[in-house]
């Protein structure tokens, strides 16, 4: 595990050798291929992840629509919602490129809290800064949702598009035809098309 690439991140440039060795006590490095699902909406989370290389897209899937939440790059944390009660993932995260992450399990987070060290302090400061950015984005989405709900009983496609929803885009949706298996809609950015599927006999 080579953690020295952390020094390329903003705020981590003056990371000392001792801190690097201390960091290895807490985190595990993982390489993730492009397209891999890092976390799935609604599924329990057991760890946080600090992105050190690559890009990750977070999105929400609702019914047959998807909402792009954020594009996360190096220095951002993933899975901070694991710290709250329940610990289920609030968003689906997918690697847009090959991604390198540092995994911080929840029990290690508690160890960082209970046995403070300089590198633990650095980790938590980075975590708080990243979570604040995520919180700001989710606040915007929540405000738009509340405003749309107050304005329209059932918002139209334009309103939804202005909020960032896309029809069957980004999300991995089970096919809605036939026996609901086998087909996966990966990407569809065009106009939504209504279709009526009939099972083949």
């Amino acid at each position: 595990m080579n953690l020295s690439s952390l020094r390329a991140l903003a705020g981590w440039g003056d990371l000392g050798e001792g801190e690097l060795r201390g960091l290895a006590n807490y985190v595990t490095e993982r390489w993730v291929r492009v397209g891999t699902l890092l976390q799935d909406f609604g599924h329990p989370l057991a760890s946080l992840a600090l992105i050190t290389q690559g890009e990750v897209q977070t999105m929400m899937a609702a019914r047959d629509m998807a909402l792009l939440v954020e594009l996360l790059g190096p220095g951002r944390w993933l899975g901070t919602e694991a710290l709250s009660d329940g610990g289920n993932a609030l968003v689906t995260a997918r690697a847009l490129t090959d991604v390198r992450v540092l995994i911080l399990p929840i029990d290690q987070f508690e160890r960082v809290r209970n046995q403070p060290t300089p590198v633990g302090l650095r980790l938590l400061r980075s975590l708080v800064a990243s979570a604040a950015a995520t919180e700001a984005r989710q606040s915007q989405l929540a405000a738009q949702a509340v405003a749309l709900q107050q304005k329209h009983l059932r918002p139209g496609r334009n309103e939804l598009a202005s909020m960032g929803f896309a029809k069957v885009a980004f999300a991995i949706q089970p096919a809605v035809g036939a026996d609901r298996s086998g087909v996966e809609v990966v990407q569809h950015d065009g106009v939504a098309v209504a279709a009526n599927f009939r099972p083949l006999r």
Partner: protein
Amino acid sequence: MATVFGLVHAPVSQPGYDPFAPQRPTPARAPTPAASRAVPSSQFDDPFEPRRARSSSAPFAPPRAAPPSAAASGESPYIAADDAFARGGRPATGQHGLDPARERAASRPYVDPTRSASRVSAPQSPAVTQGYRADPGPAQRPLPQAPISSSGTGLGAGLGFGPGAERDRFTSQFAVSSSAQQVPASQLSYAPGGPQRPISQTFGFASAQSSPGFDPAQRSGSTRPGVVGSAPAVTTPSGFDPSPRGRPASSVGADPLRIPRPGSGFGSDLFDAQPRFNQNASRDGYGAGRAGHGPMATQVDPSDEDFQLALRAMAIQPALQESELQLLAQMAWRWQLGAGETLYGEGDQVAAAFLMGNGILRLECATPDGPVMPIGALKQGDWGGELAFAGGGAHGTAAVAATDVSLFAFDMARLRQIMQVQPGLYVRLLAVLAVQQARRQRNSQMRVDQFCQTALPRPIESPQESPAPTGLGRLLSKLTGGKEEP
């Protein structure tokens, strides 16, 4: 100390290893600008803060404003403009390429002439500055009495000034005694109970004043529960302008503790290219929407019931020790907000973190269409402005008092002191913040999810499978030559 930092279980490699002790620099690394500072570089220096040279005589001095050319290199144009004005250079060109003064005059609404003196550019007339000095000055908020040394464990540890000449130089940088104007505290009490002052002054000056003779016990003279402090006098430095809006251009760079933020300083209204929401929040400071002042700040007593309840509601783990409680109380300011007052606006630069005492603070967020929607609330024990712990940034939401609110503010300089003096406490506070952030994220997510469940169109469903054929159906199928289904 060992139990506070958890050294017993820390990953140690040798007896007596202190995980927070400064480490030896890596030989292979090139010297950083921070290493060349006169102030010894601490490993707890803000890692998110840009490394800039600082004056050795003013360890708390903010980074020097960027040169005008820095605007092209990604620096804030506000800083560049302020700096240009401070050096008496050519005024900045307005948004439309015209004289900024004309643009301002054309776009500015009517301003009461009796209050417009605050917009006068430098140098201000003595009458104007005298008028501002009648405003209550910053309360003396000296540092607690502790051994001040560059290598000790007191509050001065790591700050880079020793007990001798350097300390004198530090105090003379913020000297207020010789030219200060003594204002009786009785004239400055906005509420019974102690010295209070506008918030716009809280972060401007007092946070770095040093008084060797400070005794925390002097602050406990109040008889009113929850409000503490009976300092006999409050001093106002002669060169200190309490109103950031009225600060002359030539003094923009002179305030050593000024935190550069968009919208502050003369000529800043030229740069309002983007719409700003929650305009009732002051551009220049916190809560200045109340007649030019903000909520009043008072010092905090460790025995303050609200303070203790807030700390208890915060549910910090492991629990606070007495010394940590004392430290937090010394570093905090108690603020009061009336219902409807704005604590900070969306997009404002973070200057402090807030621990909620009593009341409810509503979090609001502006939508692209314009309306500002409530998206959450802060209650007792919740933290706001958590980016102050992480080195600063912009508030993602606005905070408006839904009821009368009392809260405890920790400005960034004080937070940095906590980080240096009690890093273990700082780490635990960060952990509390992270958990609270996760909870707020979940609440926001629930709102979006609720919207999705109720407002989104139902997905396209496949046609229902044909029901099990009846006897008549089987007969008809056989008559038409169809295949009988199993």
